[in-house]
């Protein structure tokens, strides 16, 4: 079960597989079926479901607050003010949005980067070295993800505040450094993709373990590492609950918490609804992660040739 998943996570491009191979005899078969229009239309409905809300977001980011309510949701209103909305989003409250964007980038680079590094080191260590308590570590790590994170927030908050870490970027970054799923992926992946013979050969040459890791193993692990990076980037970019608890000063907010605060300020005595900025801000929040996604997707495909070496 385990090996399949790692393979699964790192293998996305059909063209690089040897499937079909040289035996392409008939036009339509299990191996090379005919393209089906009906099938394509069926899947197109699926795609509509996936994309309509995003389309809604793009369209409504072009509207004024008044236009939001007075026009059909999936078409443009009379005013086309997307550039004004973007400008207002970026400059509202002395440009706090850009600050949030910067914070999010910081959390992603240090948090997701660090999580990937720690998971890679540990997964590799668990896969390639025998030491006492290896199995126990695995059980504890998997058990830990079953405990609801929201409910751990209070104890974590109290501990961090004792350490003076609350309301600092560390309160967000340190918990982000742990990716149990990433550890698991790298562990399973390293078992197959880094040949033990290769490590032994390196040891005979007198290379230190860490040098071997950083010069040889890390390349063999690349597809797995990229996959883990992708998931940790998404996780930190979307991180909401922890920053909500840990931070009281908006200057350290990530985008998600900031946007929710904008949405919440429509309430009560000094209410100031800015729904148009919430929508435009949401769009701007999504764009970088979507771009990163598409970028990393290509990376996977190139990482794949590295992965196929082992076969």
């Amino acid at each position, binding site marked *: 079960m385990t090996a399949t998943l790692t393979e699964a996570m790192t293998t996305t491009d059909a063209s690089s597989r040897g499937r079909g191979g040289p035996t392409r005899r008939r036009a339509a078969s299990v191996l090379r079926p005919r393209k089906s229009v009906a099938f394509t239309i069926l899947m197109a409905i699926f795609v509509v479901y996936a994309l309509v809300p995003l389309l809604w977001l793009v369209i409504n980011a072009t509207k004024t607050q008044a236009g939001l309510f007075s026009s059909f949701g999936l078409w443009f209103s009379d005013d086309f003010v997307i550039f004004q909305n973007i400008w207002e989003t970026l400059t509202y409250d002395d440009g706090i949005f850009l600050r949030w964007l910067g914070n999010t980038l910081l959390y992603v680079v240090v948090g997701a980067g660090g999580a990937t590094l720690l998971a890679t080191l540990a997964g590799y260590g668990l896969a390639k070295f025998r030491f006492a308590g290896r199995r126990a570590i695995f059980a504890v790590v998997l058990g830990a993800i079953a405990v609801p994170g929201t409910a751990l927030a209070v104890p974590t908050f109290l501990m961090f505040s004792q*350490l003076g870490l609350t309301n600092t970027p560390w309160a967000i970054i340190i918990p982000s450094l742990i990716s149990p799923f990433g550890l698991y992926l790298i562990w399973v992946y390293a078992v197959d993709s880094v040949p033990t013979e290769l490590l032994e050969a390196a040891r005979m040459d007198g290379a230190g373990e860490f040098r071997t890791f950083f010069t040889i193993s890390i390349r063999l692990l690349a597809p797995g590492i990229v996959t883990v990076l992708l998931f940790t980037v998404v996780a930190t970019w979307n991180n909401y609950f922890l920053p909500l608890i840990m931070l009281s000063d908006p200057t350290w907010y990530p985008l998600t918490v900031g946007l929710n605060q904008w949405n919440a300020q429509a309430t009560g005595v000094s209410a100031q609804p800015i729904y148009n900025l919430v929508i435009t801000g949401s769009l701007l929040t999504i764009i970088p992660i979507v771009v990163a996604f598409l970028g990393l997707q290509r990376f996977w495909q190139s990482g794949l040739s590295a992965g196929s070496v082992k076969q």
Partner: protein
Amino acid sequence: MSSSRSALRRTLTIAATAALAIGGLAACSPSAAGGGGAAGDPADLDAALEKGGELTYWSWTPSAEAQVAAFEEAYPNVDVELVNAGTNTEEYTKLQNAIKAGSGAPDVVQIEYYALPQFAMSDSLVDLSQYGLDELEDDYSASTWGAVNVDGKLVGLPQDSGPMALFYNQTVFDQFGIAVPETWDQYVEAARQLQAADPTKFITADTGDAGFTTSMIWQAGGRPFSIDGTDVAIDLADEGVQKWTGVWDQLISEGLLSDTPGWSDEWYQGLGDGSIATLVIGAWMPGVLESSVPDGAGHWRVAPMPTYDGTPVAAENGGGGQSVTSQSKNPALAAAFLRWLNNDPASIDVFLESGGFPATTAELDDPEFVGAESEYFGGQKINEVLTQASKDVSTGWSYLPYQVYANSIFGDTVGQAYANRTPLADGLADWQAQLVEYGDEQGFTVSE
């Protein structure tokens, strides 16, 4: 690589420190926030302003930024860091967390009247009478001064107030020939008339809001909560409560209320297009209408809150002030800033300009303020109505020492009566039961 390595090392250092700290943590829970700080007197405040220092101030009021800037200009030695830690309950959660943790609370914090007893109870706020601020009593309206005095301690200074009034859409009323209701019976009648004439229009939107309900009970003469030290009494079925449910049950059971949740995008839209014809709400609402419901301009008017028997009486709805926390390292300076913030005319002017409704008698009695014509309200002198409402607020109200929690479970209990169109009394009984249970659990002596 080197930078990420040093980052890693730093992380490891922190982690190691943490590991040591966890051991200690299990043994002792965080110490409670300290007492009221050192005793002081009025002279200390001027000295503190002269000496200067740094303060942190949590507020979500739009005027806060301009007020802080004006303050720093007047007192260059003081540096105030303004933080918007979230709107109402979000801020309270963070304040509560900081209190629980024993650090991280600001020096000065915005707290609404309903939440004050909760924070005062846990000795988290400084008693300002030690700095002589209790002498400012005459500067504030009676109801707001009552709200910042909790259990014999002055735990804040009022910033704004929310005496309730009836905001109504004149255009809609004219269109259907509805007269402005003066009693609640007329209000119910108007609701029926409006629905019969146009089913898309509702007299008001109410899906159950704790602040609204408690204010309505307040106006009806109900006094469901009383506190005496750690003794709490709860009676959500007293005479006043029954007067209010008698009126409101009719609106709920006949489906005369719009089920658009308050403060949602659709609610704002409803206020603009006339589908929500009235609001019974605090005097701070004109500022919100002007800035956020542009389509309503010219249509809205203000009238006194309807009554049960024709005798004018109002209640407070929303509003709050600022307090000094016990965690403040410089309470004298914090109190001095607070005195300026909510008592100095320069600061109050800034506050009024942003659309706030004052708590200070100087403004409430100022002919210029009272006589100001509002363009949004079709030239009506709305402050004549609103300042009168401020004088009509009935006295003797108090909130629970755990009102923030109480309001959070309002939807679970009374909200169910709204959702199911069942009698409010059932929902209120359920609310009361849970509040009694909670009070007992928290160590209060609760009587019903």
